[in-house]
């Protein structure tokens, strides 16, 4: 039930509902830059002519975000935290089809 990534609790609220934070351990972050292959780029370009949802890019960004969160959690684990609170996401498009996804938050210990 509880969404725990590798034993670390991840929420985007300032405190953890129903838990007490005992120690803050600083900012942790994870980022990734991903690009889809040329074939899917061409297909997305074709889909763009008629409009609507570009499923290829939806999948690409979802996978990349999961990876960014995974790296952030690994960062939190390496300093011995038990949860990451106040998680934020930032995105920047470097070139068309390649995107940088960045996740950051505060590593804490809770009871």
């Amino acid at each position, binding site marked *: 039930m509880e969404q725990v990534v590798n034993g670390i609790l*991840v929420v*985007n609220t300032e405190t953890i509902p129903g838990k007490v934070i005992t120690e803050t351990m600083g900012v942790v972050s994870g980022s990734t830059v991903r690009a889809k292959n040329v074939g899917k780029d061409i297909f997305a370009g074709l889909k763009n002519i008629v409009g609507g949802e*570009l499923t290829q890019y*939806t999948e690409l*960004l979802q996978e990349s975000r999961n990876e960014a969160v995974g790296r952030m959690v690994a960062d939190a684990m390496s300093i011995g935290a038990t949860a990451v609170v106040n998680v934020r996401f930032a995105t920047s498009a470097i070139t068309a089809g390649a995107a940088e996804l960045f996740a950051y938050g505060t590593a804490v210990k809770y009871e």
Partner: protein
Amino acid sequence: MKTSIANIRLFCILVMSLFVSFSMNVIAQGSDEGSGFPFVVVFLLPFILLSLFGIIWMVAYPVMFLWGAVFSSGKVEQMHHEANNRRDSLRNRKGGEILNTIDGGYRTDVSSAGLVSANGVFGPSHWHLMIGFFNNLIGGSVTVFQQVISAGRAEVMQRLREQAESDGWDEVINVRIDTASMTPQSSNSKNTVRGVEIYAYGTGIKYE
């Protein structure tokens, strides 16, 4: 970045001109011997394929453009309508709205919490882009883009609700909606995909 692209272009032109001169050579030799036909086909094959692709594209692009002109607005409206219908049925099932933007971290009657997220990339069709271009000349609100974005946002919000329901959360607090452009501002290439990514995330909570 720019110099590397220029280098690649130069290299391509060099290779192509070498290719053409070589194939011309082969054609000339073939005409002397009278058995050069297969060589000619082999060396001209890339060019034939390229021109074939161009011809197909010349036919396919207007067809797809017209398809977009006729159906894309209706499809956007239909997507918005379906998302709203699904939202209403979920509200009836759950007995109210389950998303809210307040930070409920102070709650003490909660047994567990975790991140929930949903996303989608939506692009206006080339027909919409053309209408948007003419709309820009006059000024005012560009309704076509607004329709696409709001339909996409309704769809992503509904995906977040469904994700929260399937993960077993009772409510989602502190919902944030981010919008990111898939096309960078610095890129002035015409061949890029126009799309906007909508990303919604929040903290799912479960009551005791």
